[in-house]
């Protein structure tokens, strides 16, 4: 009797999973994601979507373990743009060139399509994109008599100017020896995403063209110079607080007036609505004197499991979730930059905003995607550890040399 029951239960679960599309998604706040899924179900009666929201901290490990079992599930999964190469090189992603016409691909920014491609084949569909800049708290500037930066691309500041401003605006209001207002907070303190543009603005390359060696690139004098500047912010000038490793905490610093400037992402235009008291401006992503302007870009993409048994359904879902209507809904819920130009046209009331216009300009002129390498996750992890150590005071050159050795060892297995 019990055996029959167990068997029945097993059968039931197998049947249930057969009738629905399995989607592995990022753990964005549920109340933002579920309405999109409900809308898909409403448009496609009879199709069940079994969506799993994996918290960001566990996302990449979970994807690795799930894909390595190789049985075709999840059917659809979220792909961090720079991981496209890694998944594609190992055959985890369905090649999409046969399923997306050139006309369809033209719906996205070409830089986003490039980020979702590997060796000339299109693998992951852009879901969002991103840009970053230097937000500043007008009130703090005015209160301490520091002239406001100009909010235009022509008036891009140099990092030395930013450091000077930060020194002036790191203020210990209660004289307890610890600043109560910090000059500059970096939203993602140890992520190559936000830190590469410093080195790239000096002309440094961050990885070899074949994507397989770091020595000579992240150890180049230019890269080390940028890393030393970063080191000074925390250790010499002490204008940035150490240990703010959670981007949400970094935003709290800025939003509640405990930081004069925030090097952060475009989504802060929306995030800062949570802090009604703050008046802020946006200066473009700084450069080093004599360098070229470089901004970070790239974001989440969506991929289809190469071994899925529900390819038609998966394609339908991917086209829906990356389509114009869904992306508009997603922007309204979450505020991240859409990767489709038609969404910008559809919401002029939002994107005519001068800050959005600046980010749009940056995305089309100065944006540089992260390097394409099959070992991106190891590469990023080792670099994050290195940046973290440097911000706590480790010697930049030595730390980067050690990191480069480790990275080369990890990447050698893809040669």
């Amino acid at each position, binding site marked *: 009797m019990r055996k029959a029951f167990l068997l029945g239960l097993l059968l039931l*679960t197998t049947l249930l999973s057969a009738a629905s599309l*399995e989607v592995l998604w990022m753990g*964005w*706040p549920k109340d933002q994601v579920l309405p999109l899924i409900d809308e898909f179900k409403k448009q496609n009666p009879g199709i069940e979507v079994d969506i799993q929201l994996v918290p960001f901290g566990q996302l990449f490990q979970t994807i690795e373990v799930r894909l390595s*079992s190789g049985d075709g599930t999840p059917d659809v999964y979220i792909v961090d743009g720079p991981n496209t190469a890694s998944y594609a090189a190992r055959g985890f992603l369905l090649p999409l060139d046969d399923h997306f016409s050139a006309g369809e691909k033209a719906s996205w920014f070409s830089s986003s399509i490039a980020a979702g491609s590997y060796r000339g084949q299109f693998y992951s569909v852009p879901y969002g994109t991103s840009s970053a800049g230097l937000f500043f708290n007008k009130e703090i500037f005015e209160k301490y008599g520091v002239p406001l930066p100009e909010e235009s691309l022509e008036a891009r500041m140099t990092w030395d100017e930013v450091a000077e401003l930060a020194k002036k605006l790191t203020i210990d209001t209660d004289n307890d020896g610890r600043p109560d207002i910090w000059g500059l907070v970096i939203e993602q303190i140890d992520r190559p995403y936000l830190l590469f543009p410093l080195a790239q603005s000096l002309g440094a390359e961050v990885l070899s063209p074949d994507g397989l060696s770091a020595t000579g690139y992240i150890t180049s004098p230019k890269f080390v110079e940028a890393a030393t500047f970063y080191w000074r912010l925390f250790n010499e000038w002490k204008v940035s607080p150490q240990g703010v490793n*959670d981007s949400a905490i970094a935003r709290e610093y800025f939003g509640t007036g405990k930081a004069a400037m925030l090097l952060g992402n475009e989504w802060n235009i929306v*995030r800062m609505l949570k*802090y009604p008291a703050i008046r802020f401006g946006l200066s473009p992503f700084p450069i080093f004197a004599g360098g070229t302007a470089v901004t970070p870009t790239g974001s989440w993409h969506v991929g289809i499991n190469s071994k899925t048994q529900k390819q038609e359904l998966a394609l339908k879902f991917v086209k829906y979730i990356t389509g114009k209507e869904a992306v508009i809904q997603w922007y309204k819920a979450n505020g991240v930059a859409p990767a489709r130009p038609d969404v910008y046209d559809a919401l002029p009331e939002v994107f005519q905003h001068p800050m959005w216009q600046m980010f749009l300009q940056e995305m089309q002129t100065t944006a540089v995607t992260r390097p394409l390498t099959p070992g991106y996750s190891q590469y990023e992890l080792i670099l994050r550890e290195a940046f973290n150590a440097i911000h706590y005071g480790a010697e930049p050159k030595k730390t980067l040399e050690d990191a480069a050795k480790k990275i080369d060892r990890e990447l050698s297995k893809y040669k």
Partner: protein
Amino acid sequence: MKSYKKTFALTAEFAILAAISMFFILPILWIIASALRPSGPLYTYANPLTLQTFFPVSITFDNFIHIFEHLQFGRALFNSLLVAGSTIVISVLICSMAGFGLAKFTFRGKNLFFIIVLITFMVPFESIVIPLFVLIRRLKIDNTYFALILPAAGNGLAIFLFRQFFSEVPTEILEAARIDGASWTRIYRKIILPLSIPAIVTVIVMVFMFQWNSLFWPLIATHSSRFEVVQVAIASHRATEDTSWANLFSSAIAGSMPPIFLFLFLQKYFVRGISGTGLKG
């Protein structure tokens, strides 16, 4: 004079203990206070530190209502309770029998078996997660409650605790029962189990905490929101782009209630259980 001194010493002792305990209690108070405030910025009340930081002026339960009504947190609580409860039942049965065997029987390979048991709870879970996942897929029990329960049911540490505990039970009692004609099953049920309440309670708490706190395995072993467990539900309120502090704190508090009650209820046994497992002179 003497009693005056004593009072003074006692007061000083309490003052020091109270000061130390503040470090542990204030952060928790802060989380509770933040969960009971209308959702909003994290630091609004934290700087400067005032009494308001730890005691909300106007209390609202909106955050709790929101996570239960709109984010299916009740489902996650139910899942975790079901998984932890079933694991407890199975592992107390299996592990106590295994511990009994290891403590009171002699058979070939006993020491080898015991060493294997010891190894199982020393290997980090991450290193076996891929083979374990492949295994449950082959058994076709992935994305079911079985996938959450079974891998945790055979618990090496629990077997070890039971074995140590049973080693203390005098073999003479068992021999006497044998001579009186009791079967081993009967001895196990009527003598061993009633004697081992403290060990059972220890294992219950241990297994419960293990299952209640598991995060990575449930993410891999199941993918439907039907099986979402408490820690996954809590962690899903955080993302790089946005973190909902109100949801995070209120779910963290709601999610820590069951273990707190369980522990309060069982604590007198728990302490005795640890001290009774082979550490007596």
